[in-house]
């Protein structure tokens, strides 16, 4: 199947006080229509920066895209003139942000913020755009939408605000929706509602969904495939089912061990040791080495390439095959 969105070897660097900080070091993934890809990683793993690079909304400077390619339907987006890029943004690729309270403009009524999509992209008139905005709000189940067009973001509940955020992103029925931690700022019960809403809209519109999160629990039910990011690079890539069942990277093993699971014995939950590396001072060789229970001499010398442990399942670890074979389970099952 021809991929809808194809990101290959994406690299982003920041210049901070004259020093170059590499935030994304060669991220690749593909996404088909109707599919959900989960990008997993801790804060600072470069997952949000990569998403903003795909959207083309990074602040340049200080950020700089130093390499790679982002193709939508075969068209290269990087290097596209800003005017054409802008036409893609919001129309064909849209984005939902983490905290809708700060991501929505506090002094503009939500109706106007929704209608703006039609007015700016479609040249719709005031009345038409307004009618569309009501439709959108109804679509994401905001009660009495028509009367709430004139309300401001702070007058809605957290869950409603995130629904409005989603409605805004979906206004022009984009091909790809990137959701960056869409539920992190919300209560657990509301989280589930929002995820269901996203899944429903994905199916209705047949769009590709990129779900960025640090929370493995959130994506378990909805993701088809997953990419685990660590220090700006891909640590592991697999179908969601494979990743959960047989992780092939020690980092993924650690992540899974820190999540309570219903399908297995409730053992002791183990957080991943240590803290994420400073992207300005990455360790030599494998970036996960300082935190890795399996690290050996070779890990300091060579950066591990992505190797396939099974069809469609890759991990960037010198011992991927061993980890995949279940050695880690024995290790951490002490």
């Amino acid at each position, binding site marked *: 199947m021809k991929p809808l969105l194809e990101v290959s070897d994406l690299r982003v660097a920041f210049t901070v006080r004259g020093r170059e900080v590499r935030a994304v070091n060669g991220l690749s993934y593909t996404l088909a229509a109707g599919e959900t890809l989960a990008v997993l990683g*801790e804060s600072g793993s470069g997952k949000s920066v990569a998403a903003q690079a795909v959207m083309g909304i990074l602040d340049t400077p200080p950020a700089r895209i130093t390499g790679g390619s982002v193709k939508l339907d075969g068209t290269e987006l990087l290097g596209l003139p800003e005017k054409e890029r802008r036409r893609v943004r919001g129309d064909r690729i849209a984005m939902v942000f983490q905290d809708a309270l700060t991501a929505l403009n506090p002094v503009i009524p939500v109706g106007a913020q929704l209608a703006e999509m039609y007015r700016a992209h479609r040249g719709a008139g005031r009345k038409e755009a307004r009618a569309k905005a009501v439709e959108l709000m109804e679509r994401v189940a905001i009660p009495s939408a028509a009367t709430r067009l004139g309300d401001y973001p702070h007058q809605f509940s957290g869950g409603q605000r995130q629904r409005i955020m989603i409605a805004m992103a979906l206004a022009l029925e984009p091909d790809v929706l990137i959701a960056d931690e869409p539920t992190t700022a919300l209560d657990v019960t509301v989280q589930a509602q929002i995820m269901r809403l996203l899944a429903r809209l994905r199916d209705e519109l047949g769009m590709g969904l990129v779900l960025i999160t*640090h*929370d*493995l*629990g959130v994506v378990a039910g909805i993701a088809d495939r997953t990419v685990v990011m660590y220090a700006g690079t891909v640590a592991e890539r697999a179908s969601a089912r494979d990743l959960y069942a047989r992780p092939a990277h020690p980092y993924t093993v650690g*992540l899974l061990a*820190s999540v309570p699971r219903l399908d297995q014995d409730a053992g002791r939950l183990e*957080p*991943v040791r240590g*803290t994420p590396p400073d992207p300005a001072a990455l360790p030599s060789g494998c970036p996960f080495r300082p935190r890795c229970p399996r690290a050996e001499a070779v890990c300091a010398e060579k950066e591990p390439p992505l190797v396939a442990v099974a069809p469609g399942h890759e991990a960037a670890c010198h011992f991927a095959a061993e980890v995949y074979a279940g050695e880690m389970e024995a290790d951490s099952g002490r």
Partner: protein
Amino acid sequence: MTDLQSGEAGAAVAEAGGLVEGPAASLSRDAWYDLRRRPLFWTASAVLLLVALMAAVPRLFTSRGVNQNCDPNIAKQGPSGAHWFGTDLAGCDYYAHVVHGARPTLLIGVVVTLFALLIALVFGLLSGYYGGIVDAVIARITDVFFGLPFVLGATVVLVAFPGHGIGAMTLVLVLLGWTTMVRIMRGQVISVRDADYVRAARLLGASDARIMARHVLPNALAPVIVVATLNVGNVIAGEATLDFLGVGLQYPKVSWGLQLNLAQSYVVDHPHLLVFPALFLSATVLSFLLLGDAVRDALDPKLR
């Protein structure tokens, strides 16, 4: 629930349980680190040090006293080797005049600000901490004084007391200039009043006075200090304006504003009479502004 950050959270809890002063201390250390690398901070400090020296020990800069060795025959001369800044209307050395002008100017600026700061701390603390009727009354009193036009208000008072000196000037400038800092202090107090560490102290049974002195005041102080620094500059400019209008300090006292007042009819033909006092006055005011700005930027973690 996933909790990738559980390790970090644990560490944070351990830290918070230790030293409450921890973040504040590191903030001021960061601020100092930031300040040290700002050339403007050093320039402003150097200028202020120079002016402070002039005010404290004018003998270091000139051997002449105030209005000493004047020669009416050489009045209004431009700068020369003998008189670096030229001479004034009475033929006195203008440089010596400028040096001696530093003291009243700086003294009034600093003393007025200290008094205003004191009022601001007391009123701001009471108003912000207790709220309610105390707040309302203080707010209205502040509004009343805030509404007085500065120059006209000061003129009314000063004209009623002919022959007034530095003391009366200070009083008038405090009377008309205390309001801004009270409002800022009040806002600061409100912002820390409901902080967790203040609630914790209250739960532990600390008295209001103790909470205000130990917890609210230190944490609300920084922005007020910044405004106070800026305020010194404003007071100096205000004092000079009153001198300039002829209702402030009177001859034979010396101050930069007064020099400008005496010079005003002659500035077209003798620009040096305007330039030198104006230069020192502006450099001093500017230095206080820059100093305040630099400290504020250094204290504001958002900008870093």
